[in-house]
């Protein structure tokens, strides 16, 4: 059996781990996978799925570039009668899935919510915050930022003031520069919400360089990458959110194979996010 896997972006750390989990699992099962990189481009991803159809694969797994493009992808697979499983990103057309299609993943908003709730608790509901956003317009950036903002509106956390929010394009160096620009402009946050770990690490580097004690700021990321876990252990990072790449990777491959073989399967397989703190970090060090 051959499964086509259309990933949104190869450069992303978390997605790399996810990809490797799919590959590993496929090897164990003796299934052949063909990976494609859409480089963040919806149209390219669409073409890749069409190319899979033309190449006659037995099933397709896709990590969407954007949730809203789900409908177009669903149509292509439906017309060709090929099973399609969306992994990680929740497609906008989840409720109207045709047959032979499913979603395996975790809800972006949950990540932001877990992060914000924990930070709010650590900060005792008050402080000056900044938000480091991912690349503007991406589903992760929107979902996670929206969840953080929602949590901060709640009564328990409404004393946390957001001083500014800017994008650092998911990357470490831009986050480093952004944070430095903030501190020199008189924005001295005690709380940093970062849409992912890389940006959190950039912020940490900047704050350390300007002599801020890491105990004085609370910093949260998402993804639980190896770098982030190390930072968490060192006490620099305060919280991150684990998204089970293993669960999603294996789940998506299992689901698509089930559909392809005509076995029964769920259309919605939710794999929850998990909060990672210094207390439980050891458990995750070997997970991703």
């Amino acid at each position, binding site marked *: 059996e051959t499964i086509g896997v259309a990933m949104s972006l190869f450069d992303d750390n978390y997605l790399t781990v996810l990809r490797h989990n799919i590959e590993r699992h496929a090897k164990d099962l003796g299934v052949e996978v063909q990976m494609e990189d859409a480089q963040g481009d919806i149209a390219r991803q669409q073409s890749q799925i069409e190319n899979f159809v033309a190449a006659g694969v037995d099933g397709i797994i896709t990590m969407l570039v*954007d949730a809203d*493009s789900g409908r*177009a992808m669903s149509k292509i697979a439906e017309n060709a009668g090929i099973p399609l499983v969306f992994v990680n990103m929740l497609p906008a057309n989840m409720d109207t899935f045709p047959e032979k299609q499913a979603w395996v993943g975790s809800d972006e908003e949950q990540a932001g919510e877990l992060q914000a709730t924990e930070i709010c608790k650590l900060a005792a509901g008050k402080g000056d915050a900044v938000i480091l956003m991912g690349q503007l317009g991406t589903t992760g950036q929107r979902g996670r930022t929206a969840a953080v903002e929602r949590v901060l509106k709640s009564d328990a956390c409404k004393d946390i003031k957001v001083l500014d929010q800017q994008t650092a394009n998911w990357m470490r160096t831009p986050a480093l520069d952004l944070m430095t620009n903030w501190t020199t402009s008189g924005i001295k946050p005690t709380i940093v919400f970062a849409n992912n770990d890389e940006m959190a690490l950039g912020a940490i580097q900047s704050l350390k360089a300007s002599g801020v004690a890491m105990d004085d700021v609370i910093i949260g990321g998402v993804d639980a990458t190896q770098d982030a876990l190390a930072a968490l252990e060192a006490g620099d990072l305060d919280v991150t959110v684990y998204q089970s790449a293993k669960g999603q990777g294996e789940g998506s491959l299992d689901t698509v194979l089930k559909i392809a073989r005509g076995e029964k399967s769920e259309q919605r397989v939710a794999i929850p996010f998990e909060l990672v703190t210094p207390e439980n970090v050891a458990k995750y060090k070997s997970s991703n």
Partner: protein
Amino acid sequence: MENVQAQPASPTRRKLPQELNILTVLIGVALVFELLGWFVQGQSFLGNPQRLTIMILQVSVVGIIAIGVTQVIITGGIDLSSGSVVAMTAMIAMSFAQTSDFARAIYPGLTDLPAIVPILIGVGLGLIAGIVNGALIALTGIPPFIATLGMMVTARGIAKWYTKGQPISFPSESFASIGSGAWPVAIFLLVAVIFHVALRYTRYGKFTYAIGANAQAARVSGINVQAHLVKVYAIAGMLAGLAGVVTAARAETAQAGMGMMYELDAIAAAVIGGTSLSGGRGRIFGTVIGTVILGLMMSGFTFLRVDAYYQEIVKGLIIVAAVVTDVYRQKARVKKG
């Protein structure tokens, strides 16, 4: 002077020099894929009509852009803004193509509009972006690279700002239909034919080549160089707008990240097809072939299950190899006479 005689060149050589060259490159690449197909996959690469359609379908948007970009390059300029203009026009056109079945991203009070309205809005916006590019270049004299780089950043910014990053989705059926089936291919080929004729047989075309060959001489020959440049950039912008509409219709969604790097693919298609970046030389037919070569690569890689990690490396090498081959074949042709 009676004995003034140059050896007459073979007459065939005159008609399609660059295009024939690049056509053989195209055939060469296709044959390599075909051969590998039989060896590696045990099936024909070209023998699958569905694949052939998809091959062109997936590059038709880049192709539409490339036709405009080719004209800009012939004038000796460059257009880096096309990819961003695709995003901007896709977003804005889509906001007028949504139906009331879903919540509208912008203009909640809007009634459902016929598809032609968002299409014209998209194409019109592209036209305006192109006019701004052209006017900047022609009137202020700044290099096209910078003017269109500015537009690239600005248009992308507008695309993001328009809905604060939110994508806009679920257009009306009629709007989506121009992106479905073989429509994008048809639009691409129609545009190609129109501008092939325009460049070869009209004054517009002759002036375009003249400006690229020697702008000063063009002015002295009575051409209004500034006005003409505005026209050429306007057309390139308009085609980018059209490409934006087609992409949005095809994906049934518009988002700010769309069309990223398309400008480079479009320029690559034009140059692979024999358009000279120093201006004055190039043909639409060549650009179409260049575009198809890009499509061929994308399909071929998936077909041959080339590891995605290698795809980019191989793609880079093929682009360079195609142009090198072309350059050498032209040199060889010149040698042979």
